[in-house]
């Protein structure tokens, strides 16, 4: 059996070695990830804390312990202002023989512990202050997406990262997903030709509510923070933020404007955020990023479709389609034609009329094995960056631009206007 980790290392290394200059410039973190020398050697142990141990925080901890090659780190402390989540996380950590100290306030954590890095997975509105406090204490930060609840906080986070010279990596795991890395190389090498449109969507059919512990109604806003505008922009910050990041990465430029609309169409249950949104982002060269998200139909699931004049990539299903697909073998064409000749009705619209329905061509896979976990890779990269003392600046900018344009999307929906990036937020 081929070792999955070896597979993954070879894949990343190969990508870093074979990538063109343009492709590597678009994803500079690839070279760092491929460089094994950074994790080897008798380096000192990296001291980490996780702030926010809800669903994502626990997932990230699991992924930390799944990093192959046992990187030399210690989970020194966990911090959460909700005791139940702290207890659950301690329970989870028992299987790793890990018993970190616990804190309910991140400032106490910073005061008492000597940390190299933190992982922040609190609700969105808390990200900025916690991340800024950490960076000001000299600690490198991995913070979940989106960056912050408003444009000003996003900029404050970015500025602190520059002033304090601390790593600020935002949790966009697709940046480390082998399907995306390989697909982006092809896009940046020009394999898809001129990209005219990127279409993306995320459709679910559920109410997005979490059940309250002991049915305690006073916990509604704490547990279901995603549904309230004070803490979240709902579908925009939770889902669109990932997909606008993919679009910006693919096009290697930021939009120039956004317009959009949204509504609470189905889940009229007291929530404040829209359950149905549609946006169009325009780029200087005329490319459009067309987006929609809803939570009352899941037929189409989620996808990012990069559409060029020579081909299309659909990342989520790991497929590339050429605009001129290879013809089927002769014998199969013959059988097809005989079949059509025997069984098809004559077209009433005349022989020149062919219905322009979607092509049935199933395309080719972008990468062969797709079992290479992206969240583990992004955390592995973060530890490498921490050990090296810096990360490629582009990785912070990816998070920054995605977050800024996510919040601008929300403002466009709220105002009904076509919005441009205010000059003070341009990097």
């Amino acid at each position, binding site marked *: 059996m081929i070792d999955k980790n070896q597979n993954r290392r070879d894949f990343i290394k190969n990508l870093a070695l074979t990538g063109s200059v343009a492709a590597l410039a678009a994803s500079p973190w690839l070279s760092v990830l491929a460089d094994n020398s950074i994790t080897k050697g008798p380096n000192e142990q990296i001291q980490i804390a996780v702030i926010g141990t809800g669903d994502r925080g626990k997932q990230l901890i699991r992924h930390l312990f799944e990093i192959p090659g046992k990187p030399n780190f210690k989970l020194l402390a966990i911090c959460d202002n909700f005791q139940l989540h702290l207890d659950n996380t301690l329970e989870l950590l028992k299987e790793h023989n890990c018993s970190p100290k616990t804190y309910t306030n991140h400032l106490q954590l910073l005061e008492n512990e000597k940390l190299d890095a933190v992982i922040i997975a609190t609700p969105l509105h808390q990200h900025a202050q916690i991340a800024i406090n950490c960076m000001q204490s000299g600690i490198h930060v991995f913070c979940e997406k989106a960056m912050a609840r408003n444009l000003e906080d996003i900029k404050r986070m970015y500025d602190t990262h520059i002033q304090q010279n601390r790593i600020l990596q935002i949790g966009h795991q697709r940046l480390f997903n082998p399907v995306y890395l390989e697909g982006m190389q092809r896009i940046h090498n020009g394999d898809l030709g001129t990209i005219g449109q990127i279409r993306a969507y995320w459709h679910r059919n559920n109410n997005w509510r979490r059940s309250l512990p002991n049915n305690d109604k006073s916990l509604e806003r704490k547990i279901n923070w995603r549904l309230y505008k004070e803490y979240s922009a709902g579908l925009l910050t939770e889902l669109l933020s990932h997909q606008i990041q993919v679009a910006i990465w693919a096009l290697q430029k930021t939009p120039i404007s956004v317009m959009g609309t949204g509504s609470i169409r189905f889940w009229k249950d007291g929530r404040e955020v829209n359950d149905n949104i549609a946006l169009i982002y325009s780029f200087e060269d005329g490319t459009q990023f067309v987006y929609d998200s809803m939570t009352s139909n899941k037929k189409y699931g989620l996808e990012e479709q990069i559409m060029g004049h020579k081909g299309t990539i659909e990342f989520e299903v790991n497929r590339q389609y050429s605009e001129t697909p290879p013809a089927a073998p*002769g014998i199969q*064409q*013959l059988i097809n034609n005989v079949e059509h000749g025997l069984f098809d009705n004559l077209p009433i619209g005349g022989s020149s009329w062919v219905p322009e329905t979607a092509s049935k061509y199933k395309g080719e896979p972008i990468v062969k094995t797709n079992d290479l976990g992206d969240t583990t890779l992004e955390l592995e990269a973060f530890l490498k960056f921490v050990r090296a003392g810096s990360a490629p600046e582009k990785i912070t900018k990816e998070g920054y631009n995605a977050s800024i344009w996510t919040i601008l999307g929300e403002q466009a929906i709220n105002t009904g206007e076509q919005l441009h990036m205010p000059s003070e937020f341009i990097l």
Partner: protein
Amino acid sequence: MKDILIKSKRIKKELLYLLVSLALADLLNVISIIVYKSSWKEIFTQLGYVFMIGILFYILSIIIRVLVRVIKSFF
């Protein structure tokens, strides 16, 4: 119980029918390659299809022969 005897002459005849059916299917593959200007590699890569079509031809030949025998028996 009565044994069913298949004469070797009969076996040879059926094998010949099968061989001709397979050859016809192969010929069809060659014609398709020329007509649809596809790759000559398909002579080998499409052997599965060719085999299936060959079997189909053979089954057709059985149906036709049975039909001919039935019709003949009426006259």
